[in-house]
């Protein structure tokens, strides 16, 4: 169920995100980073061999440093004259968008074909999601939301209930916080009110979800209602808006971060509750019974999650 929803969201995002990114000069059909010192350009029609193969016709720079040209060492053009590969002397910093300008390529000699090469944006978005989910899991690597984490991870059912409720509330409240931050706090220089506004929005979301759920689906409310109160005592819910304000995330990035944070919390709760259900049957020394052994287990999970650090998918 969750998987299908997730996939749909990703597809919608793909559709929204891509058209804005593929705009380029008409002559350029596609462009991407190849090896770590290579840019590959695909043309929409066959181009002039002479112009395309001459490195002097190319000007390439990183977007923030327009004055520092990257030296193109060699250009190799495919036999069908439809694509070219630019080799650079030094590895490219692919986290920055690169601007490429090609002179004398189009029939009109005045026109310089200019386009930007960047990593696919969707990969970046998924990177944020995976990072919040695993690499920077809020519970096991950022150590937030522990009170609620230890309180509700005794049973699998509780864990699932809490995790789902939390994910819904955090996505809604983070998106609202983003709007408030971008359109009220930032323009009016009210950044010092961040804490009050964000916690207020969280309370509002919790209250709204509570009321709506009670009216629309009483069964669901009976199942998840109790966790709503606990959501507000969870630091993650206030940490996410603070992080997105700090990093100046845009709307999609905000959505991904909050989804990752919620999903990560659900994952952590589920893993932990599975272990704790078994621990109850085990013979634990009396001094370690209850919370202390839960802490030790959480520490082992945290060690395991340390292994995700440095992972780079996109």
């Amino acid at each position, binding site marked *: 169920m969750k998987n299908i929803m997730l996939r749909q969201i990703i597809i919608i995002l793909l559709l929204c995100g891509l058209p804005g990114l593929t705009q380029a000069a008409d002559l350029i059909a596609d462009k991407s980073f190849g090896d770590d010192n290579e840019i590959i350009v695909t043309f929409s029609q066959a181009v002039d061999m002479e112009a395309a193969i001459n490195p002097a016709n190319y000007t390439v720079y990183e977007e923030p440093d327009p004055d520092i040209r990257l030296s193109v060492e060699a250009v190799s053009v495919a036999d069908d004259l439809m694509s070219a590969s630019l080799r650079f002397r030094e590895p490219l910093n692919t986290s920055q968008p690169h601007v490429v300008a090609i002179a004398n390529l189009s029939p009109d000699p005045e026109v310089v074909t200019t386009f930007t090469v960047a990593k696919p944006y969707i990969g970046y978005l998924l990177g944020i999601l995976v990072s919040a989910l695993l690499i920077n899991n809020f519970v096991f*690597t950022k150590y937030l939301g522990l009170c609620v984490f230890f309180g509700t991870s005794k049973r699998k059912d509780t864990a699932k209930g809490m995790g789902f409720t939390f994910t819904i509330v955090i996505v809604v409240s983070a998106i609202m916080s983003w709007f408030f931050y971008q359109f009220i706090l930032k323009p009016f220089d009210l950044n010092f009110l*961040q804490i009050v506004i964000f916690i207020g929005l969280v309370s509002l979301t919790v209250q709204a979800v509570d009321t709506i759920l009670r009216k629309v689906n009483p069964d669901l409310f009976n199942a998840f209602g109790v966790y709503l109160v606990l959501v507000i005592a969870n*630091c993650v819910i206030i940490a996410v808006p*603070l992080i997105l304000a700090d990093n100046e995330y845009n709307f999609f990035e905000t959505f991904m971060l909050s989804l990752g944070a919620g999903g990560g919390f659900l994952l952590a709760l589920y893993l932990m509750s599975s272990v704790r259900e078994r621990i109850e049957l085990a013979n634990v020394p*009396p001094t370690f019974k209850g919370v202390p052994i839960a802490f*030790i287990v959480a520490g082992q999970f945290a060690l395991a999650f*340390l292994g995700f650090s440095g992972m780079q998918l996109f």
Partner: protein
Amino acid sequence: MATDKSNIQLITNGILNENPIFRLVLSMCPAVGISTTVMNGIMLGVAVLFVQVFSSVTISIFKNVIHPRIRIPTYTLTIATWVTVIDLLLAAYLPEAYGKMGIFVKLIVAFAIITMRLEMFACKESVQASFWDGIGMGLGFMFGMMAIGFVRELLGMGTLLGYDILGFQPLLFFVLHCAGFFVVGLMMAFFNYVEIIYKKTKQGA
């Protein structure tokens, strides 16, 4: 309804019987996250003490004016206000320490311990009792943080408050973030052990 406990009892209650970290198991995030040194513990402890005392007193002063139906929003607003104040103060006057604590100062706003004390104590008791209770809870939190920081700094870096004590680094592991879980868990187990022994000797006597 006034509490029959004296000021001293209110303070020791916060530090020992109802220690927020080891007894009530609340506000665990900073206890694991930034308790790598004693200094961090003291700094965050001071911030929590400030917020707890000022919020308790504020609520206690206005307890008769607060409408029961908007009790929780008022608490949240009060805490958020004082957190903002301490956040601004620390950022302005102690930028280095503030940088180390990072996001945790702002997160005091979501600490269950503060809301809980307002709900259970400050909204019923006199201003004076609330003040001392706030001090006790704040100190309890601070001592908890310092104790964890003490173990982690000494075993992880061989220093205390930045001064070289052991002259070598025993186990880097204790400075890593995830070790916070182990240290807190082991310390809780230790306190449980002490309690069990204590009860046994009492029964025996």
